[in-house]
Each structure stands twice: as structure tokens, then as C-alpha cells.
């Protein structure tokens, strides 16, 4: 192990040196040091909140090559980002780099919003995670650069589990249910608001993981056209397993989504939940509605699925793209190259995020908070890479279907058939 790490470190050092050298030799008509202008980068607030030092470091490295270029980084909220991007792209004054979620890229790519990039110029591009790489590709060309990825894991209260005599995270689905039964028997009897397992009804990333685990799909492509596959037998089986868990262990509001999950978990009435690793931290942070008294009482585990394998997590991630209307495409590409190289990725791993490539996925410490996420990421999935997927997501087809199932308003079969109809209506539209 020690030998491997030192070899890896040497390799990385060598690459870092080469990278610097390559960065210096521009070969442009105007020397890099003399170029003037502005580079506008739109990142989402994640960078501002979780790795602001990485942004500063990359800007400093960029300045070494282009001292006269002024880099402006603007932070966007996920909820309003795309409307702003649409408005900007419709005009002339466009940002030079935009961060795009991997479920958002396809529609922009097929509509010609982004310029192509040459993967060979980017670090570890041969090992880019398929979840991000595929979202950037269309007709064999690459239109964006993978940035980072996140995978959901199981998170449990170590103290509560210890009180029912369990001293380790569940490894199989039956073991998980046995632990939840114990939690429910001990704490649920005394408090009807106690959820052994927290799973709000509109939490579609979680529910779709059960669909995938059962071998189902959200939508499939046949003869060039996409259509919904939620009413297929396997998808229905997955959703039925999901509903069983809700019925058995969840006592909260079934028409909610997971938006305030950390705050709810912070109330102390939840034994286990399925979420992003940072949510365990947020549940102990009073700023996000959590309870500091719960600090040190959460641990993560790779969530076992009903199929006997790990529950395949949604690999929600980000990519960086260059608008076709940008006047600084080469500069933008250089900035992205620095921002996604292995040095930068290492900084992301340190901030409990998963890197953009399988090579560095192995650097994520197995015992750390993100170890189970790295482990589960190998079975990760992405939303259908269909032109109209964004429309499906934003018209809340999945959320409404799940709410109907969770509240018992409709049977799984009826709700999925209706959802498939809604999906078919928009998924092929540009």
C-alpha cells in the first residue's frame, strides 16, 4: 500500500510539473502574458460554500499564465441558474464558463448552446466517470468537462442503534430491516413522530434508486425515440419495495421532498436516512436547522438494496461548459483545465466530494465519511440523456407520481402509467 501511494505521489508530482510547463508554452500569436480582457465564470454556490480556496488557488495559477486577464467568478443558486443562463445565452454578453448539472446538459448540447472541447487536453480524461462523461457527449463530440460528483449513502444515528444493541452499520437488506424494526419498536412506541427511516414521498432520487436496483428504468430509448419505462414490471417492483419501506418505517408528511432533510433529522426523531454525506454534518449545524448536540452521532454506510447488491445511487454531478457565443473560448478552456486537473480534484476529495474520474476515486479514504459513497458510486446511475429530460424534471412528473404512490392516492401501477404518459409527451422535445 505504502509503495503504491508513493509511486502515485511521484507520478502526480511529475504530472504537476509537466502541467505547469505545458501551461507556460502557449504558442499563440499574442504571448499569453500580454493578453488582456475579462473571463467570466459562473459556478454554483457549492464552490463558494465548500471549496472557495480551490477557486482562489486556480485563479492564482491562471494569473501566472495570463497576468492581464481579469477573472470574475459569479456564484449562482441551483434553482435559478438555468433561467439566468437562458437569458444570458439569448443575448450577446455571455459568461465564458458555466457550471451545468449532469442531468441538465443534454438539452443545451442538442440546441447548440455549447462549444466543443478536446478531452485530450484535460487531466484523467480517459478515466472520466461515465456518469459525467456521457452527459457531456453527443455524436462522438465532447461539449463539457466533468467537474465533480456526489453519491448518496445511508446515514444512521450511532447512539440510537447502540441503544437497541446494534454496533455496526447494516450490510444486507434483511439486516437493514431488522435494525429498523428494532429502532421502531424501541423509539417509535414512545413517540409517534419517530421515523426509524426517513423517506419523504417526493424524494425522487431515492425512489429511483430502488427502481434501478430492481433492474428498472425511468425511460428507455428505442429506435431513436425515448419513452417512459416506469410502468414496466421491474420498475413497479422497485417502487413497491420503496413504498414498503415508507409504510413500515416513515411517519412524516408524505407529500414533502428531501429539501429540509438535515433540519428534520436534526430534530432527533430519525434513526436512519438516505442522503448526501454532507447532510450528516448539516444535521448538527444550527445554521441549517440542525442540532449541535448531535455532533459525532452520525455515521455513513453503503446502503444495501433489496436486490442483494448495493442500492445504486444517483450520481448527481457537475460539469463545466463553454457557451458557443463566448469570445474567450481558449482562455475558458485553459481555466477549466486548471480547475479540473488532478491537483484541484485532490482538493475536492478533501472537501468530502467525489472526484470526476475513476483513477482518483480510489484516493477517497475507505474509512472516511465519503468511503461508502465512493464504493456505491461504481453502481451509480444518471437520469436519461434525452433532449427533453429537463422538461420532465421541471414539470415534476416523478415527484407527483411518487406523492400519489406514497399517499395511497393511486396504486403503483396507475401512478406509473400516468407518469409514463407525461414523460412520453415531453421527453423527445428539444
Amino acid at each position, binding site marked *: 500500500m505504502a509503495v503504491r501511494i508513493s509511486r502515485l505521489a511521484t507520478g502526480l508530482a511529475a504530472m504537476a510539473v509537466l502541467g505547469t510547463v505545458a501551461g507556460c508554452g502557449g504558442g499563440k500569436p499574442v504571448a499569453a502574458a500580454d493578453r488582456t480582457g475579462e473571463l467570466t465564470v459562473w459556478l454554483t454556490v457549492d464552490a463558494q460554500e465548500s471549496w472557495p480556496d480551490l477557486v482562489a488557488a486556480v485563479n492564482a495559477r491562471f494569473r501566472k499564465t495570463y497576468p492581464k486577464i481579469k477573472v470574475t467568478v459569479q456564484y449562482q443558486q441551483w*434553482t435559478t441558474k438555468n*433561467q439566468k443562463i*437562458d437569458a444570458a*445565452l*439569448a443575448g450577446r454578453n455571455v459568461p465564458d464558463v458555466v457550471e451545468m448539472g449532469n442531468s441538465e446538459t443534454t*438539452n*443545451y448540447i442538442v*440546441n*447548440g*448552446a455549447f462549444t466543443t472541447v478536446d478531452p485530450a487536453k484535460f487531466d484523467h480524461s480517459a478515466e472520466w466517470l461515465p456518469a459525467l462523461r456521457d452527459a457531456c457527449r453527443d455524436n462522438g463530440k465532447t461539449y463539457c468537462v466533468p467537474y465533480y460528483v456526489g453519491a448518496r449513502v445511508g446515514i444512521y444515528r450511532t447512539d440510537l442503534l447502540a441503544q437497541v444493541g446494534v454496533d455496526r452499520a447494516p450490510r444486507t437488506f434483511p439486516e437493514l430491516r431488522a435494525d429498523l424494526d428494532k429502532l421502531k419498536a424501541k423509539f417509535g412506541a414512545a413517540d*409517534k*413522530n419517530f421515523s426509524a427511516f426517513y423517506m419523504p414521498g*417526493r424524494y425522487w432520487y431515492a425512489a429511483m434508486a430502488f427502481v434501478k436496483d430492481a433492474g428498472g428504468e425511468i425511460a428507455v430509448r428505442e429506435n431513436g425515440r425515448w419513452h417512459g419505462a416506469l410502468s414496466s414490471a421491474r420498475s413497479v417492483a422497485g417502487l413497491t419495495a420503496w413504498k414498503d419501506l415508507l409504510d413500515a418505517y416513515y*411517519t*412524516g*408528511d*408524505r*407529500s*414533502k*421532498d428531501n*429539501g429540509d432533510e438535515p433540519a*428534520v433529522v436534526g430534530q432527533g426523531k430519525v434513526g436512519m436516512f438516505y442522503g448526501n454525506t454532507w447532510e450528516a454534518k448539516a444535521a448538527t449545524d444550527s445554521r441549517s436547522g440542525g442540532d449541535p448536540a448531535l455532533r459525532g452521532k452520525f455515521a455513513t454506510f453503503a446502503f444495501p438494496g433489496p436486490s442483494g447488491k448495493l442500492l445504486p445511487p444517483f450520481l448527481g454531478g457537475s460539469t463545466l461548459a463553454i457557451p*458557443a*457565443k463566448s469570445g474567450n473560448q481558449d482562455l475558458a478552456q485553459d481555466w477549466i483545465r486548471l480547475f479540473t486537473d488532478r491537483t484541484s480534484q485532490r482538493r475536492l476529495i478533501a472537501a468530502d466530494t467525489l472526484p470526476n474520474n475513476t483513477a482518483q476515486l480510489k484516493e477517497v479514504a475507505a474509512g472516511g465519511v465519503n468511503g461508502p459513497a465512493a464504493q456505491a458510486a461504481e453502481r451509480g446511475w444518471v437520469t436519461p440523456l434525452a433532449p*427533453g429530460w*429537463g*422538461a420532465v424534471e*421541471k*414539470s*415534476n412528473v416523478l*415527484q*407527483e407520481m411518487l*406523492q400519489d404512490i406514497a*399517499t395511497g*392516492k393511486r396504486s403503483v401501477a396507475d401512478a406509473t402509467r400516468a407518469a409514463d404518459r407525461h414523460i412520453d409527451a*415531453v421527453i423527445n*422535445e*428539444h
Partner: protein
Amino acid sequence: MDLPGPPRAAPPPHRPRTARATRPRRTLRRRLLPYLLIAPTVLALAAVLGYPLVDLVVLSFQDMTRRELFSGAPPPYAGLANYRSILTDGFFWTVVGRTALFTVACVAATMVLSLLVALLMRRVAPWVRTVMTGVLVAVWAMPVMVAASIFRWLSDADYGVVNWLLGLLPGLDFSKHNWFEDPWQGFAVITGVVVWGAVPFAALTLQAALSQVPAELEEAALVDGARPGQLFRHVTWPVIKPSAVLVTSLSAIWDFGVFNQIWLMRGGQPEKEYYLLGVYSFIESFAVNRYSVGAAIAVVTVLMLLAGAVVYVRQLVHLGAAE
């Protein structure tokens, strides 16, 4: 919106002119002056309302997709295809009916409540009236964003105050009751926010109108033996009717276009059962990216509002003729 202005002042008395030569210039200037004075308003309205409205109408006859949006290429013309697709869609008519019903419910509740508040304000001691006015203005000043968040919290299924209060009543168990699962109940809560926000303006306007009712007229009616109901119908109501008609039509226009309250109360992800015309148009345009279909829905909405406005203007003209 046109507000009924004060009665037009009588033309100024004709003054004898001393210098005949200046007369044509002065008349010209006098004739131009009103147009000059109204010009900034007309220009501002044309810029912020006219231009977008024309653009909206044009867009509704095109087939605009993101490709044209991003490349700047002119979108192809689609003729009446967008209108045909929405007008033949049963869901669109469901949304129209729902919007109309919602508007009627909101306006009726707003008018009844604010008339009661205004009548109450006439009866109470002056200091109570001052307090009531202050409270109404405070409610009016409350941003929709804040009001909607508070109502959402009040009606929360797990931690809401409403469920807790109802649960205190004997025989009722409202714990974990979700107010938004059944759209009728959900719309009741949303109507609550809208009416709550609309009552102050209506109540204060009606109260001002009520202050115009001559006290001696009411006294005379009472002396003649009029019962309170008759007094209101035959003496008070005719005086405040113009204001009431105005407030009713304004409320109808506002409530027909309600968007924020629904959007905020449903956490930015309204279920299809909660679509009103404004929400539907927004979702079609900016979530599904059918910009032209969204525009067509908006144009139809504007036309429906115009139909309502015509009724309102005709009523105003009638009132004017009667006076």
C-alpha cells in the same frame, strides 16, 4: 389601470384678449399641453407594457425553441398551431375553469370581508379605528413572499400551528393532516393568503367611500323607520357602489393572475392540480421550454382579462350616465 378621476373641471372662463396676433399660438400651445403632459406616461406604458405585449403576441404565432433562443436565428412561423393545440386540450380548459372559480371565490371573500371591516371601522372609537388602519396598512405592506412562507408554516403537516390548534378541539385529530393533499383544502389555504393580502386595500377604499355617506341622510332614513338592512341597501350602498365596483374589478384582475402565492406555497413545484393560468403559462414556457405555447396561453389570459375589463368599463360608463 384607469381610475375614475374627479369630475372634470369646468373650462376656464374666456378672457378677453388684448393682442390678437398671439392668439393662434396660444391656442395651439394650449391644445398641445395635455398631450405633452400625458406623453411620458404613454411612452413609459408603451415601453414596459406595449412592447412586451406585441412581442408576446408575435411569439405566440411562432415556434420558438431553445435552438433559436441560443443562436439568435429567427424562429419559424407556426400560424395558429399553438392556439389550436391549447384550445383543443381538455387540460387547458380545466385550468381556465379552475382559474375562474378561484377568482370568484377570492373576490367574493375579499369583498364581503372588507365591507364588514369597513362598516365595523365606522362604528368603533377613533383610537380603535387608528389601530385598525395601522394593522391593515401593515398587512398590506407585508411582502407576498413572507406572507406565503408564514401561511405555509402555519399549515405545515408535521409542525404546523393550524393542525395543533384544531387538535386542541375535543374530538378532532388533525396531527399530520396534510392540507395540500386534497386540492380543495389546499386552495382554501391559498385563498386565505390571497384574501388576507387583498382585504386591506379593499377595506380602506370602502371605508373612504363610506365616509362620503352623508350622516343626515342616514338619520333621515332612520327617522322614517328604515330597518338597518333597508338603510344599507337604499342609502349607504348607492353611495359606495362606484368604489365597490372599482375594487371588485381590480381584485378580479389581480386574483385572475395570481402566481406568487401558488408558486411559493407549493415550494416552486406546483402539482398539476394547482395550476392556474399564470402558473401553467410559466411552466410551459420556462420548465418545458415551449416558449410559444406558453406565450399563446398568456395571450388567451390577456384576452379573457380584457373581456372582464370591457364589462367593467361599460359599468363605469353606465354609472357616469346615471349620475
